[in-house]
């Protein structure tokens, strides 16, 4: 059913909180996502022409890198992006078949591959580019919030988290119930003034992004024309090492 479920008081809203301040852009979350989901609920995630020019394939998580500011004050920000499991997901309501749906119990947005006709309209309706078409199977695919991990009783309780969250080496990703104001993720969002992507479109994403901390500006780099940095005279030990290096290089 592509009509949205009526939100209930205390509605569970499972989602991710992504910390742009500490993401190092290692792409581990994208790789772990691809690995788990290629054989998971929405698998396979096909790749086309994987070893040649124009290689492309289905990914649920992609890491963009941006720069903001100019000169000394500029900063690089790595920006992972996956489905935001919106509260007002137009990707669901535009679906003509009922294949796209939002779960009433936890707010996860899913695609029923057995019903999807591959019209691609949901991917047009998503402002964030969360949905990718599987040209092999002719159906749309998307992030499941690792629904086959988070409820999976075959996994140890501490492993019942999305693959992208599990793998992050710097703890830049958090998973939890954003509908519960007392949850750990909600507290992080409140403390760090986490926000919505493109709030002006009214999709009310559940996933939140923590903006980079204001921090200190980078120290000024030496500029051309200034005094050159002093060159230390090589010590006796250095001179010996250089002589050895020259000797061995012959």
């Amino acid at each position: 059913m592509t009509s949205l479920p009526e939100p209930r008081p205390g509605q569970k809203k499972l989602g991710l909180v992504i910390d742009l301040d500490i993401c190092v852009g290692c792409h581990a979350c994208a790789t772990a996502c691809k690995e788990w989901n290629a054989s998971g609920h929405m698998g396979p995630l096909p790749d086309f022409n994987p070893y040649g020019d124009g290689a492309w394939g289905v990914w649920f998580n992609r890491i963009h890198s941006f720069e903001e500011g100019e000169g000394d004050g500029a900063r690089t920000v790595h920006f992972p992006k996956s489905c935001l499991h919106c509260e007002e997901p137009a990707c669901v309501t535009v679906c003509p078949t009922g294949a796209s749906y939002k779960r009433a119990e936890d707010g996860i947005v899913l695609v029923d591959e057995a019903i999807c006709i591959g019209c691609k309209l949901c991917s047009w309706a998503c402002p964030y580019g969360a949905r990718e078409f599987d040209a092999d199977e002719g159906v749309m695919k998307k992030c499941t919030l690792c629904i086959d991990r988070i409820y999976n009783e075959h996994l140890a309780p501490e492993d019942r988290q999305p693959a992208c969250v599990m793998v992050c080496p710097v703890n830049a990703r958090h998973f939890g119930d954003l509908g519960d104001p007392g949850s750990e993720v909600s507290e992080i969002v409140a403390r760090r003034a986490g926000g919505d992507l493109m709030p002006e479109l009214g999709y009310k994403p559940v996933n939140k992004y923590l903006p980079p901390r204001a921090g200190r500006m980078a120290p000024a780099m030496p500029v051309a024309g200034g005094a050159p940095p002093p060159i230390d005279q090589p010590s006796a030990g250095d001179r010996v090492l250089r002589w050895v290096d020259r000797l061995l290089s012959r």
Partner: protein
Amino acid sequence: MHPALSIVFFTTASGAGFALLLLLGVAGPLGLLPSSASFGVAALALAGLLAIGGLASSVFHLGRPERAWRAFSQWRSSWLSREGVASVLTFLPAAVFSIGWVFFGVTSGLVGLCGILAAALAAATIYCTGMIYASLKPIHQWHNPWVVPNYFVLGLMSALLMLNFLVRLWQTRAPGVAVSALILVAVAWRLKERYWRSIDTTSAPSTVASATLLGSRGKVRMLEPPHTEENYLLKEMGFAIARRHRVRLRGIVRLAGFALPAFLTLLALLVGGVFGIVAAGLAIFSAALGIVVERWLFFAEAKHTVTLYYGAEAV
């Protein structure tokens, strides 16, 4: 947005087909058209072929065409589903209307009522087609009040140009249809110019800053894309080939889509006879070319917010 040929053909052909059905359903019962069965066959068959051909073409766009029937189920929320339902419903009264007209020579009474009903449903179908695009908030060039009227008048314009040709095969003079066609060409041209001015002078509320929450230190720009190669999102939503030729393509739309059809229709109105038939026929071909280019541009000029994540600063 990537202009898939199947969708370009679908929206132009079925738009013209349903608009022709709309005109026949209203003008037939009112006695404004030749009442002969042969005219009914020709006009209704043309409308049906265009409408059904367009719908069939849209099915080729699907990843799983064999499941197309499922698209009729979600009319409560989806404009695409509503369009499917409205288009199929249109064929029911249209069939009664066609049988009454062609086999019994009747276009009044219950048959006429079915004609009016088919016209209303055809109008609803065209409205739904426009709303599929106009309801998509991520695409500023589609999510605006000009899109639905544009679809509507371009459909009606194509239909009137076809009707102007058909009527001439049965009647020597048809000033009413020709004048209506001329008016519709003028209205369609005016609305298209307003649409172009609107998308040229406004931009989406979303920017790369609102898409990333960045910008506190100044201008935000892409440093690295996620992948070195293209992906589905860029192929489907990042299409930018025709934008470079925008001015030239708009010129083709103005000339082939509006100016020439208007001139040829005026010529047909003034001279009539065989020469008028030829002129009216050429007007259809010229308009078809112009509207296909127009629809191609409608897609190619549309910029999706996802491109903000791939280097676009505004959409």
